């Protein structure tokens, strides 16, 4: 089964979950890690709690906020395994693409396509409008 983890500094995961639920409805198999807020659990403990729900047949796609940030670094340190796929610098379009992808599509194809399509969603809209006039 394909499962997902959204991990970031602060409450960004909860916020993006809210956006996703408005667009997609209720989410299944989505875990959140909100680092450095709330409970006094270490990031490692939070990662371990998520990994308890992942078996060898599952695929876990992890979305982290910043390449080089402590969340991505610790996910890399504690969670990287053969069936774990880590994408840093997520945005809402990327999450929509990956979460809405056909579960039977190969995970690497889903990730590559998702990243390319999500990247194209970052647009300087004013410039686009001016160009199209």
């Amino acid at each position, binding site marked *: 089964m394909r499962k997902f983890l959204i991990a970031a500094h602060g409450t960004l995961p909860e916020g993006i979950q809210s956006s996703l639920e408005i*667009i997609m409805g209720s989410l299944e198999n989505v875990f959140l890690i909100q680092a450095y807020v709330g409970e006094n659990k270490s990031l490692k403990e939070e990662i371990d709690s998520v990994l308890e729900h992942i078996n060898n047949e599952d695929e876990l796609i992890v979305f982290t906020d910043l390449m080089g940030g402590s969340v991505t670094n610790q996910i890399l340190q504690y969670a990287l395994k053969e069936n774990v796929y880590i994408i840093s610098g997520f945005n809402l379009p990327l999450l929509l693409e990956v979460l809405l992808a056909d579960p039977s599509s190969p995970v690497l194809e889903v990730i590559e396509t998702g990243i390319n*399509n999500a990247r194209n969603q970052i647009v300087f809209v004013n410039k686009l409008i001016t160009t199209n006039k």
Partner: protein
Amino acid sequence: MILKDYLIIDPHGMHARPATALLRLARQFKSEFSLKKDGNKIQMKSMLNILSLALKCGDTISVIIEGDDESQAVAAFDNFFNEEMKKF
């Protein structure tokens, strides 16, 4: 193959929620689906691809359906574009 044109009736055009619903509707069938507007043709496998067509209220979109269950699919699409699109 079935090719059918539909009018976009939502005042906000084809935005995120209807695009998601349309993608999920298509996935219920075995047929392959494409959307075509002004020479742009996309495979209906990605919600962002649907949004990339920038469909506005009043635009007409061509839906191309190919597969064994295309007749059932077009009936479902009729309902989607004519009825469900009013609810977003």
